[in-house]
């Protein structure tokens, strides 16, 4: 067994520097690496580029890094729900690269799986395809999209073991598995870190080979963005 455990978030983020590109899992505030984000805020690294489907809300998730003006560039598919983001984007302080959601996921997965690029029909004929190679396959036009290159991936899982194997819960899975092994170093934080052998190998979502560092996360807030309920009959 190859051990991937580190003692804490400080150890997990060793080597993080100004100007780096990070992938961060999560959809809205669901399944975001809360501990890694808090540590990035504490470290104060600046000029960073973030690949993440969304940009958090004003006072949580990636919004915390935006507040401190640590982010130079955001690569996302949807960035609503964040006033500070809007202000920085309109003032030109923040560079934004909007990418179709499925393309964003696949650009991560391509990096994980060793594909330099791939063709997708998404965005053909729109401004997303401007300046990109296009090609006809079976009578349908496609756009060439390149795999991302990132320094660190920060992902959040439900359970993990010492070998770095991960299991996700519900829709908190989202982009997290696609980002594992898609950057030079993948850092996984988990709600429950278990000894090797505790997880059934049949039920592993992401094998530990895609993870370099794993640590027991703390104090998850798991904020709900849109609490919707129905009345009891």
């Amino acid at each position, binding site marked *: 067994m190859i051990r991937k455990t580190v003692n804490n978030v400080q150890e997990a983020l060793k080597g993080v520097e100004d100007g780096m590109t990070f992938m961060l899992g999560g*959809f*809205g*505030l*669901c*399944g975001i690496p809360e501990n890694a984000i808090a540590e990035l805020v504490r470290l104060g690294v600046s000029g960073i580029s973030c690949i993440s*489907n969304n940009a958090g809300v004003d006072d949580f998730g990636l919004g915390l890094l935006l507040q401190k003006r640590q982010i130079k560039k955001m690569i*996302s*598919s*949807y*960035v*609503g729900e964040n006033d500070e983001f*809007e202000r920085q*984007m*309109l003032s030109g302080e923040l560079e*934004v690269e*909007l990418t*179709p*959601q*499925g*393309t*964003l*996921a*696949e650009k*991560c*997965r391509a990096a994980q799986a060793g594909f330099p690029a791939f063709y*997708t*029909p*998404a*965005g*053909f*004929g*729109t*401004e*997303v395809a401007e300046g990109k190679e296009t090609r006809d396959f079976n009578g349908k036009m496609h756009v060439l999209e390149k795999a991302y290159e990132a320094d660190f991936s920060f992902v959040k899982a*439900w359970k993990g073991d010492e070998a770095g194997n991960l299991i*996700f*819960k*519900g*829709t*908190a*899975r*989202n*982009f*997290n*598995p*696609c980002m594992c092994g898609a950057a030079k170093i993948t850092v996984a934080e988990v709600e429950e870190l278990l000894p090797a052998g505790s997880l059934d190998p049949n039920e592993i*979502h992401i094998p530990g080979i895609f993870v370099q560092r794993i640590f027991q996360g703390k104090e998850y807030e*798991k*904020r*709900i*963005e*849109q*609490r*919707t*309920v*129905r*009345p*009891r009959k």
Partner: protein
Amino acid sequence: MLDKNGIAKRIAKEVKDGYYVNLGIGIPTLVANFVRNDINVEFQSENGVLGMGPFPYEGEEDADVINAGKQTITTLPGASFFDSATSFGMIRGKHVDLTILGAMEVSEDGDIANWKIPGKMVKGMGGAMDLVASAENIIVAMMHTNRAGASKLLKKCSLPLTGVGCVKKIVTNLAVLEVTEHGFKLLERAPGVSVDEIKMATEGTLITDNEVPEMQG
């Protein structure tokens, strides 16, 4: 004329037994409320769930189980969770049978614009570009005109496009229309709406060669 629920109710009739369906935000979300109980349908949300159920009872919300609108949801027996690449694999690979989404504009060529208004805050396309580029069966749910009263069914879209030549069917508060080679073919009128009223509200070419029936409730 139909209200939003009326549009959703009409679209629900297009949902067939055995369909996997992706519903967009807004009017499309309402479609789930009107699908017949005697057919089996699974709703997909692109953030990674198939087999979505109703909203949870108060106190049973789970922060780890949401839909693409970031609302808390429940799952039904037979549901599954998956990652975002797999989710869009389902969409791109045409495993999802029907996609229902909103639009700001649709052109008579089937182009759709629904993600960006120049000069206003751009929030992003989310999964819309992937959905419209891949799905073969797309129904647009929208009001026939915008708040200023201008037609949303145009010869050419004026807003930045989400996808080209992809819309096949449109259900509005006034009509059901099909996108054909020669323009928007009027299939049904909303209750109490005349063909002339629909013509007035449609900037693109409107084809009305046969008698146009009124929508059945």
